[in-house]
């Protein structure tokens, strides 16, 4: 059961353009929504995250838009650069693990390529 659905699977954007990646979740118990960026041969790294009581969060060129009623959230990368070429994973987090750890449920990933 895929609890976090992510699209598109791959995306090609011209330098300077806007990259948009969408995610949808099913479980309303999720209470934190991070995005991770992964370069080839590396582990994922936290890029930006949002709480469900906020509709938008912006950090530099990266913005998360969050629609709680639709159970959807998206990542917008403004002025996309070749250095942004990576795989992006949305995730949803909830504190269900014994002892306080958080369980991350990941989307299937989007391979972004920014062309010159």
């Amino acid at each position, binding site marked *: 059961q895929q609890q*976090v659905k*992510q699209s598109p*699977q791959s995306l090609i954007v011209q330098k300077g353009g806007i990259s948009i990646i969408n995610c949808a979740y099913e479980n309303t118990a*999720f*209470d*934190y929504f*991070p995005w*991770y960026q992964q370069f080839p*041969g*590396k*582990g*994922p*790294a*936290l890029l930006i*995250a949002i*709480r469900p009581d906020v509709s938008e969060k912006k950090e530099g060129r990266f913005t998360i838009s969050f629609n709680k009623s639709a159970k959807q959230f998206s990542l917008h990368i403004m002025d996309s650069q070749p250095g942004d070429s990576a795989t992006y*994973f949305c*995730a949803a*987090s*909830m*504190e269900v*693990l*014994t*002892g*306080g*750890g*958080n*369980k*991350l*449920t*990941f*989307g*299937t*990933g989007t391979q972004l390529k920014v062309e010159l």
Partner: protein
Amino acid sequence: NAGVTQTPKFRILKIGQSMTLQCTQDMNHNYMYWYRQDPGMGLKLIYYSVGAGITDKGEVPNGYNVSRSTTEDFPLRLELAAPSQTSVYFCASSYRPGPTGEQYFGPGTRLTVT
């Protein structure tokens, strides 16, 4: 700080062999996690630990075992390797409990079982 380190980077196993994937973090994080990443899929949680001596199962624990004798180390053991365990394995750690605890990932171990 080296962060989260994993060894080996690559490994090829024959069916039925055993091995241990090593994970060490030098950030004094209590929470540690093992994930596997299959092509075209998101990461899935195998096991996690909330402190030395405490471990529990994640989504896909079958075929794996873990131990946590120190805060720093969280090895993952494969006892009887099967082709279905061909994957990239990531170890992660976090310092803050609750849903907002950022997880820091290691560089991964690429395992092939033939």
